[in-house]
């Protein structure tokens, strides 16, 4: 786009009026009084749809994330201020009884965090989504560790209901040639169920924290009222909510209970991944391909050999130096100093490591490397 300023204030106001008008029309036609979606969110979405084709992929990804956080910010502010005196409500009327309205807001939020409120209020859903961030982090990380296993694997599986049946099935012994294979599949399923159980415990822990954070926010606004220092800006309101969530989170994740749940989750994921690795290795072995366990063994042996080699070389150099310091000993040939000096270059280390011949040649040099200009 050639327009330097991609975002025009008049255009934004026009968007806002457009969406407000459209929503008003819709409500009049249907005769309902549904809560109005945050017009700013809608305006942002509309704007992004218009300009995103011009952005590069990395910029799009980054802006998507910024927009997401922006929407959470707007939703938080809109939710807390809805119906407050001085803030127009969905129907345009200014509500009285600000404390009642605020209390109702807090009650609704607690109900939502306890699972008692459906998707009727999008702004509540956005705030629930805010508390999903720690879980979202886990899911992204888990997906990156095991591409075959998405981060939300088995998240919604009704573990309790099917546990008994699965336990019976998994305890059935195998027979004959397929005994080992069957045992491995049973181990794999067992690991999967244990991971799912650990993940559900982890989710359950976080569900409680949302309720506690609402309580904390309630106490905070109470204290602001008592000290005569009200929250007087949207950013201040959002920051206060974040601080409450962060405080509750910090207190709860410091407990031994969380450390146990967190440890069980990671251990369960590792156990599941290990079972998958074993099965992958077996498949590779059957195809006469190198397996991870074979490579690991070779790596350990090679590293042991290298360690011994370097140690021996170091001792050899020390002996040579001692001999050279003896009377008449300086006639003996000297080799490289104990620290193998490599001629300096600006090339990355990977290139140097890729040429073993070059390293051997460098080790035979007598003088320390001279610095090369970068």
């Amino acid at each position, binding site marked *: 786009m050639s327009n330097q*300023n*991609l*975002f025009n204030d008049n255009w934004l106001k026009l968007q806002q009026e457009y969406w407000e008008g459209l929503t008003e029309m819709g409500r009049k036609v249907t005769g309902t009084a549904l809560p109005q979606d945050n017009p*700013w969110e809608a*305006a*942002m979405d509309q*704007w992004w749809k218009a300009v995103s084709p011009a952005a*590069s992929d990395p*910029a799009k990804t980054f*802006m998507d*994330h*910024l927009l997401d*956080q*922006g929407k*959470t*910010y*707007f939703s938080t*502010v809109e939710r*807390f*201020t809805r119906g*407050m005196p*001085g*803030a127009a409500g969905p129907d345009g009327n200014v509500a009285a009884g*600000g404390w009642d309205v*605020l209390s109702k807001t807090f009650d609704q939020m607690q109900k939502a965090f306890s699972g008692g409120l459906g998707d009727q209020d999008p702004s509540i859903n956005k705030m629930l989504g*805010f508390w999903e*961030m*720690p879980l979202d982090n886990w899911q992204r*990380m888990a997906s*990156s*560790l095991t591409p075959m296993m998405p981060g939300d694997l088995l998240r919604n599986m009704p573990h309790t209901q099917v546990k008994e049946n699965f336990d019976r099935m998994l305890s059935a012994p195998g027979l004959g040639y397929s005994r080992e294979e069957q045992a491995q599949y049973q181990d794999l399923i067992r690991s999967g169920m244990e991971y799912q159980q650990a993940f559900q415990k982890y989710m359950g822990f976080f569900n409680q924290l949302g309720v506690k954070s609402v309580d904390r926010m309630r106490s905070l606004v109470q204290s602001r009222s008592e000290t*005569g220092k*009200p*929250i*007087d*800006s*949207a*950013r201040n309101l*959002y920051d206060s909510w974040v601080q409450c969530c*962060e405080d509750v989170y910090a207190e709860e994740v*410091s407990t*031994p209970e969380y*450390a146990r749940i967190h440890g069980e989750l*990671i*251990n369960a994921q*590792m156990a599941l*991944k290990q079972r998958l690795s074993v099965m992958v290795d077996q498949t590779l072995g059957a195809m006469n391909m190198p397996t991870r366990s074979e*490579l690991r063994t070779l*790596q350990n042996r090679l*590293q042991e050999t290298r360690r011994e080699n370097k140690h021996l070389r170091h001792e050899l150099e020390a002996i040579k130096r001692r001999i050279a310091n003896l009377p008449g000993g300086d006639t003996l040939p000297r080799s490289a*100093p104990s*620290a193998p000096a*490599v001629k*300096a270059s600006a090339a990355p*280390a*990977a290139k*140097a490591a890729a040429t073993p011949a070059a390293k051997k040649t460098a080790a035979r040099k007598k003088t*320390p490397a001279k*610095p090369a200009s*970068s």
Partner: protein
Amino acid sequence: MLPIDIRADKISEEMIEYTRKLGQGMQNLIDAGTIDTGVTPKDATYTEDKLVLYRYQRPADVAQQPVPLLVIYALVNRPYMADIQENRSTIKGLLETGQDVYLIDWGYPDQADCALTLDDYINGYIDRCVDYIRESHGLDKINILGICQGGVFSLMYSALHPDKVRNLVTMVTPVDFKTPDNLLSAWAQNIDVDLAVDTMGNIPGELLNFTFLSLKPFSLTGQKYVNMVDLLDDPGKVKNFLRMEKWIFDSPDQAGETFREFTKCFYLRNGFVTGTATVGDQTVDLKQISCPMLNIYALQDHLVPPDASKALNGMTSSKDYTELAFPGGHIGIYVSGKAQKEVTPAIGNWLNKRS
């Protein structure tokens, strides 16, 4: 009095301002270009496997100190944090105090490195880098500055090779891993590190990222990006933010055996405090360290709480032990303007008096 007193028109103003900055900032994001890593010119002087030992180019107008300084950074992040931008560079600050600065860049371990142990790092890589610098300068001893986990390595190295270390500086270095406010340590107690390393080999950087972000998830994955919009209209600040963002998520994998040993030795056994720290078949006795020491910690450090660092006092035989408390966080101690004015000059002056 109502606790939330925000007029509708004020909310609208804030929202319009926010979205205006977002729109303007997109152009700056698109124009940000390649994010560089490290700003001070340096030369690669020694390489081994994936390690590169860099020597920073010294300013011509600064009198040089005769004893070089080796900076040993942690394995868990990339070392360009110490040289992240022109006006926020610990390396540059040290050079300006006359230090001849070397830095070990550990590189990016891959599965070929998973068998590397603490012994390989400390008595191998670090010792060979120290020997290289000693021989290059014709000195018996050099100065060492260890940062975070690099400080732990520096302590172990100095205890095992006290004849090679002239002065030792540690920055935000954990010594007591089981202080009550150490979240990472609390979480590590229930993790089966053997299972993790046996399963994965190297510990992926993504797992470490998740762990660090989990310390403050709402601030670090949410609020930070809302705050970022405030600086989007300044191309310089956008670039600085993106540099920091790159560093935060640029976490190398950890060599499996080293991770296993380090976790068990320190997070589980609290090796320095219990006297059970070992490297290979050698016991690490901090009382073997008798050189002058400067121990710097950050008062709002949520990764290495101050008490974890202050525990070093009295654990060595040094008769010249100094502490410096910095009013900032684990990262702020390198990148904040205040740190550039207070911390790096203090390190330089301290070293100059003892070199």
